């Protein structure tokens, strides 16, 4: 690893950041989330914390821009230079800039987050089938209002899960119109516009008026890119038009003709020859998370590393299962020290031993059951089925097994136990669990069923419909028990309050997780209470929230909860 000359670093650990604008390529929620996760990469291994601010001067300003974007280091169009960041300090120092002539994704192609519909903000699943036809992009087929939609599962006909795709007819971002959609036609500078325009701006961002007259009302917003929008060229944000003619030849798909660099492009009108309007076709794009994590490394004081697999190596390469390289860890800890908290345990061999000997002493294994491999390591599990604090210990459930961490921080990330041995009636896949603090009863949820254990006696399985949950509710993904005989049941964007004694959900529910628990991912797959704080997990990360509903930490499940080395 390398640091900047003089070991430039922040003189405080509570770093603040501000997001100045957004890219039209991704939903603002996806961008916010990518930045949170990118900061979490560094906070997981240092004492640093990162807090987003909306007013005032932050340590790190984040912006998207293209070519000349206000500093002496212009970007260079699509590909090539992706982003840059300045080492710690005042003013522009510490800031991170991202080239908006790139196609920003999560590294594997266009990310289309839906809004409205019944997919609860899930991403489009491409391809999907609708009435027997396969669709690889959003479509307005089947609608009379022209709005673009997609299925969030492979088969709309079977699952009927859908949402609307980004479009200026649905919402705008930024500006001063609180996400209102465009109004067409609108008047700007005395001219009438029937679509988003870049007129009046030097930064090439497409905008529209959100009332019929911008000159009078001054209300505007930026247009989100559609999933078929071209990148760069001279038609950024417009969709390809097929077929189009290029040098008198007709094209029905993106082509590399006319380019020495073999990049795919298309015309955005029916005739390139006549209109000369074009752009690059969407490709895999660059992972905003990975690039941001790299740039934030600079913003914290790391220079480029010589280690090819390190995050701080200067070249971009996509990895689906990101882990911070030990070179990056050494670099950042050289500047800021290691994070505080329990000491990591010594590494243990992960190879399966030649002779299988169960070393776990708490549970005996019946000979008819195949022994659990004690080397099965919780640290190698990417996402758990469920996490819950039961009998004073945090339990991590996955595929019929569970691991525990006691409240004293004693780690059991190896030597898992079988769910079937502790709770014989349960299936192997647990969605969530909780222990009612008053009655000490333990509840488990799996799909639309739930079980109630009092000691070793069990009630269930029973349908969650008995609790008053609608038929559409497919599962309960997390539970926060409360001291007053209530428990909050979470299922993505909705949550219910359960009266544990009456075994029915209270009136006035479900409520929106987004509204009542602002700042945590609305698609958390595990939600639980631990040591009096709420945890919302997404991927390998958790967002910890105080009872005042303030997020006070974003961390790694693996390092911060399981104490993995």
């Amino acid at each position: 690893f390398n640091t900047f000359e003089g070991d430039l670093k922040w003189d405080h650990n509570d770093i603040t950041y501000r997001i100045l604008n957004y890219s039209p390529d991704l939903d603002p929620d996806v961008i916010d989330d990518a930045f949170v996760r990118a900061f979490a990469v560094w906070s997981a291994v240092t004492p640093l914390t990162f807090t987003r601010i909306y007013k005032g001067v932050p340590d790190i300003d984040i912006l998207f821009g293209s070519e000349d974007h206000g500093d002496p280091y212009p970007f260079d169009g699509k590909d090539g230079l992706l982003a840059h960041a300045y080492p710690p300090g005042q003013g522009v120092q510490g800031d991170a800039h991202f080239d908006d002539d790139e196609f920003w994704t999560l590294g594997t192609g266009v990310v289309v987050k839906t809004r409205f519909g019944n997919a609860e903000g899930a991403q489009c699943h491409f391809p999907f089938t609708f009435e027997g036809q396969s669709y690889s992009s959003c479509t307005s087929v089947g609608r009379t209002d022209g709005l673009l939609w997609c299925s969030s599962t492979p088969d709309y006909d079977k699952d009927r899960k859908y949402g609307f795709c980004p479009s200026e007819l649905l919402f705008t971002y930024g500006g001063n119109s609180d996400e209102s959609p465009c109004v067409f036609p609108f008047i700007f500078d005395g001219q009438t516009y029937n679509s988003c325009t870049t007129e009046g701006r030097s930064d090439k961002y497409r905008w529209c008026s959100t009332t019929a007259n911008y000159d009078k009302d001054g209300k505007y917003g930026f247009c989100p890119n559609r999933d078929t929008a071209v990148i760069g060229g001279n038609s950024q944000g417009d969709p390809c038009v097929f077929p189009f003619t290029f040098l008198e030849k007709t094209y029905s798909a993106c082509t590399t003709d006319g380019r020495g660099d073999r990049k795919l492009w298309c015309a955005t009108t029916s005739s390139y020859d006549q209109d000369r309007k074009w752009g690059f076709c969407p490709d895999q794009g660059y992972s905003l998370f990975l690039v941001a994590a790299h740039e934030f490394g600079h913003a914290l004081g790391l220079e480029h590393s010589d280690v090819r697999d390190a995050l701080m190596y200067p070249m971009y390469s996509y990895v689906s299962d990101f882990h911070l390289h030990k070179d990056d860890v050494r670099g950042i800890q050289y500047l800021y020290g290691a994070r505080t908290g329990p000491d990591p345990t010594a590494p243990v061999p992960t190879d399966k031993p030649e002779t299988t000997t169960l070393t776990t002493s708490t549970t005996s294994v019946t000979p008819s059951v195949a022994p659990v491999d004690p080397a099965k390591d919780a640290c190698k599990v990417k996402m758990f089925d469920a996490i819950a604090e039961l009998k004073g210990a945090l339990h991590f459930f996955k595929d019929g097994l569970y691991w525990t961490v006691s409240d004293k921080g004693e780690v059991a990330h190896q030597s898992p136990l079988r769910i079937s041995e502790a709770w014989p009636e349960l299936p192997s896949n647990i969605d969530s669990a909780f222990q009612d603090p008053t009655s000490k009863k333990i509840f488990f949820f799996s799909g639309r069923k739930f079980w109630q254990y009092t000691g070793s006696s069990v009630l269930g399985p029973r349908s969650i419909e008995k609790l008053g949950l609608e038929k559409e509710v497919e599962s309960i993904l997390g539970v926060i028990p409360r001291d007053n005989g209530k428990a909050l049941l979470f299922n993505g964007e909705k949550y219910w309050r359960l009266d544990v004694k009456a075994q029915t959900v209270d009136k006035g529910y479900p409520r929106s997780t987004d509204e009542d628990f602002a700042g945590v991912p609305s698609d958390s797959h595990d939600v639980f209470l631990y040591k009096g704080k709420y945890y919302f997990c997404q991927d390998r990360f958790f967002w910890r929230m105080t009872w005042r509903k303030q997020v006070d930490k974003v961390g790694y499940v693996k390092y911060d909860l399981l104490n993995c080395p």
Partner: protein
Amino acid sequence: APAPIKTPLSITFPGEIRNDLTDLQRAERYLQQFGYMAQEQGDDEQVSLRKALRLMQKKLGLNETGELDTETMDTMKSPRCAVPDIGN
């Protein structure tokens, strides 16, 4: 039969940042931009270039040939962070 329309290998697309640099010019610019070579060269430019190429190849874990070989050119065309590799 209709004669096939010949599409030129490369045209200039409007609005695109295009540099018509040779490989050598492109390499020199890259080496200067990312801190491997000073803007002002000494008397022997060939020696400076070779030295800078070796430095870049070593830093980025490439074969240290001191030549503008395919691996080096490909690396120079790869997407990357704009922060210099050496110096401020």
